[in-house]
C-alpha cells in the first residue's frame, strides 16, 4: 500500500509538471487556433536563457548573490520570451491568418527548428544547470500509518506547488483583469471579439507572452530536475497526450489530463512494465489518451464538436 501511494504521489507530481507544459499548448490554441508545436522549443529556449543568464549575471555585474542572480536571469529570460512572442506575431501569425490547421501546425514546427537552432547558437549546447535552491532530499510521510512511511521527493512537491501557484495566478488573470476578459472573448469568437474593438494582433502577442512565461516556469522546473539540455524538447511530446486527453480548449482539462496521464504513466510503468519489457511509459500515455478519445472525441472538457453540412 505504501508503495502504491508512493507511485501515486510520484505520478501526481509528475502530472502537475506535464499539465504546466500542456497549459502552454491550450492557451495558444484557445486564443489563436494554432496548435503550437513550438512549445517544447520554447521550454528549452527559456530554460537555456535562464541557466545562462544566471551564470553570466554575476560575472557581468559583479555581485555574488544567488537569489539575485536567479531573479535577474528570470527577468531576462522572460524578456527574451516576450521578444519571441512579438516576433512570432509580427513575422509569422500575421501572414498565416485563416490558413488550414495543418499549415499552421507546420509553421509552428518551423518555429521549433528556428528556436532550437537559435537557442543553442546563442546560449551554447552543453548541459547546463539551473540552481534555484530546490530541496533535493526526499522525505518520509505518514510513517505513523504505514511501516516505513511513504517516500516522497521534496523537489517534486515544491515543483507541483509552483505549478499550482502559476495556475492559480493564470486563473486570476483570466477571470479578473480586462486583458484576461479580452483573451476569453477572443477564444470564444474571433469575429465577435474583433467587432467590439479587441485587437486580435495585440491579444496574440499577449497570449504568446503568457505561454512564454509558462514555458519559462516549466523549463525552470524541468531544468533544475533534469539539467538543461536538448532532450527538454521531448517534454513537449510527452505533454501532447495530456492536451488531447483534457481537450484542446480547456484549461481545467489540461490540469486534470496532466494528473491522469502522470498517474497512468507511473502506475503502468511499475505494474505493467515488467511484463512487456519496460520503457512503456512513453507510448502508454498516448494509448491511454487514444482509448479515452474513442469515447469522448473532444477530450475531457473540450467543446463539443458539432458538424454542420
Amino acid at each position: 500500500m505504501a508503495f502504491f501511494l508512493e507511485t501515486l504521489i510520484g505520478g501526481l507530481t509528475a502530472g502537475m509538471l506535464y499539465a504546466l507544459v500542456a497549459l502552454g499548448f491550450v492557451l495558444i490554441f484557445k486564443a489563436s487556433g494554432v496548435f503550437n508545436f513550438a512549445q517544447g522549443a520554447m521550454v528549452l529556449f527559456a530554460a537555456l536563457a535562464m541557466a545562462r543568464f544566471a551564470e553570466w549575471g554575476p560575472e557581468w555585474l559583479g555581485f555574488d548573490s544567488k537569489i539575485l542572480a536567479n531573479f535577474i536571469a528570470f527577468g531576462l529570460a522572460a524578456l527574451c520570451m516576450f521578444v519571441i512572442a512579438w516576433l512570432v506575431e509580427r513575422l509569422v501569425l500575421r501572414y498565416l491568418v485563416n490558413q488550414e490547421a495543418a499549415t499552421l501546425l507546420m509553421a509552428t514546427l518551423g518555429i521549433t527548428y528556428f528556436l532550437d537552432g537559435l537557442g543553442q547558437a546563442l546560449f551554447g549546447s552543453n548541459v547546463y544547470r539551473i540552481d534555484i535552491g530546490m530541496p533535493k532530499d526526499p522525505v518520509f510521510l505518514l510513517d505513523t500509518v504505514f511501516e516505513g512511511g511513504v517516500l516522497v521527493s521534496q523537489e517534486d512537491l515544491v515543483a507541483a506547488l509552483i505549478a499550482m501557484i502559476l495556475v492559480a495566478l493564470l486563473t486570476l488573470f483570466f477571470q479578473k483583469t480586462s486583458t484576461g476578459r479580452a483573451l476569453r472573448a477572443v477564444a470564444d469568437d474571433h469575429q465577435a471579439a474583433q467587432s467590439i474593438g479587441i485587437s486580435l494582433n495585440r491579444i496574440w502577442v499577449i497570449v504568446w507572452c503568457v505561454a512564454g512565461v509558462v514555458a519559462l516556469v516549466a523549463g525552470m522546473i524541468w531544468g533544475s530536475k533534469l539539467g538543461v539540455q536538448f532532450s527538454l524538447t521531448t517534454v513537449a511530446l510527452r505533454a501532447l497526450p495530456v492536451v488531447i486527453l483534457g481537450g484542446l480548449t480547456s484549461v481545467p482539462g489540461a490540469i486534470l489530463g496532466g494528473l491522469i496521464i502522470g498517474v497512468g504513466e507511473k502506475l503502468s510503468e511499475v505494474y505493467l512494465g515488467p511484463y512487456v519489457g519496460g520503457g512503456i511509459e512513453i507510448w502508454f500515455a498516448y494509448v491511454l489518451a487514444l482509448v479515452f478519445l474513442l469515447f469522448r472525441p473532444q477530450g475531457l472538457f473540450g467543446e463539443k464538436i458539432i458538424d454542420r453540412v
Partner: protein
Amino acid sequence: MIYSENGQLKTSYRADQQLFPISQDRYFILIVLALAFFAVPLLASDYLFRAILIPLVIMSIAALGVNVLVGYCGQISLGSGAFMAVGAYGAYNIMMRVPDMPLVPAVILGGVCAAFFGILFGLPSLRVRGLYLAVATLAAQFFADWMFLRIKWFTLNSASGSVAVSELKVLGISLQSPVSIYVFCLCALVIIALLTKNLVRGAIGREWMAIRDMDVAAAVIGIRPMYAKLTAFAVSSFVIGVAGALWAFLHLGAWEPAAFSVDISFKLLFMVIIGGLGSIMGSFFGAAFIVILPIALSLLLPAVLGLFGLSISTAGLSHAEFVIFGMLIVWFLAVEPHGLAKLWSTAKQKLRVWPFPH
C-alpha cells in the same frame, strides 16, 4: 503557343481519359523519365547518388504515400516514420526468416505489414479528426519506436534493435553500386507514382477527396467513411512501408529504430505541405526541397560566410542550419501556403495563354 491544347481533338473516351491529355505534358514526362533513367546515371558522381539522388527518390515514394493520406484523404498523420519502420523491419524479418527470399517480394510484403499496422492505428480516425488525430497518430510513432527497441523477436535478438542486410540482388543483378540502387529505386518510384495517380483519379480517390472536403457531407451522399478512411490509411502506409524498406535496405544498409524517429515523420509532413497537398507532382517537389535544402545550406553557409572573412564551427553550422531551415519553412508557408505544386500549376496556366494573356 508552345503549350496549348488547341487542335488536340479527342475522338474516343479512352483518349479523353488518358493520364496526360495534353501531348506536351506527355512529351515532357517522357523527356524527364529519359533524363532520369539514362542521362543521370551517366553524369552523376557517387557522392551525388549517395547524398542526394537515392534519398530523394526514396523520400519521394514516402511523400507520395503521405500525400495519399494527408493530401487526398485529409487525415493529418504524424506517424509516417512508424510506418516506414514497420515496412523496414517487416521486410527484414521476411528476408531473414524465409530462406532464399528475393528482395522485391520481401519489400512488398514489408509494405503489406505496414498497411496492416496503418489500418490498426487508423482506427482512431473513425472517431477523432484534425489535430486530435495528428496527436493520436503520434501514438503509432512512439509505439513503433518502443516495439523495435524492446521486443527482441522483431530484430532477431540483436542488441538495441540494430540490424543490417547485405548482398542484395534483384533478378541476379547485385545492388552494390550506387547507380544500380538508384535505377532500382527509380523503377519503384515510377511504378508507385503511376499506381497512386490512377488510384486517386478513380472511384476510391474521389471518395477520399470527398471525405477530406467534408466527411459528414460525404457520408450523407453515401460514401462509407470507415471504408474510405481505412483504405486511405492502408494504401498510404503500404507505400510508406515500401519506401521505409527501400530506405533501410538500400540507403542505410544497417539501421536501428532511431533511424525512423519522429523527426522523419515531421520531415515527411513538411514534404507534402511544402510540395502541395493533394498533388502527385507536389510530392516530388516537396521531397526535393527537404532533401536538398540541408545539404545546400551546409555547403553554401561556409562559402557565404567565407566571403565576409568569417569562419564557422561545426556546431555553429548545424545551429545556423536549423535557424535558416526554420525561417525558410515559415517564410515559404506564408508566401505560398498551397505549396510548390500551386506554383507549378500557375506557371503552366501562364504558359498556356502565353504570349496573349488577355
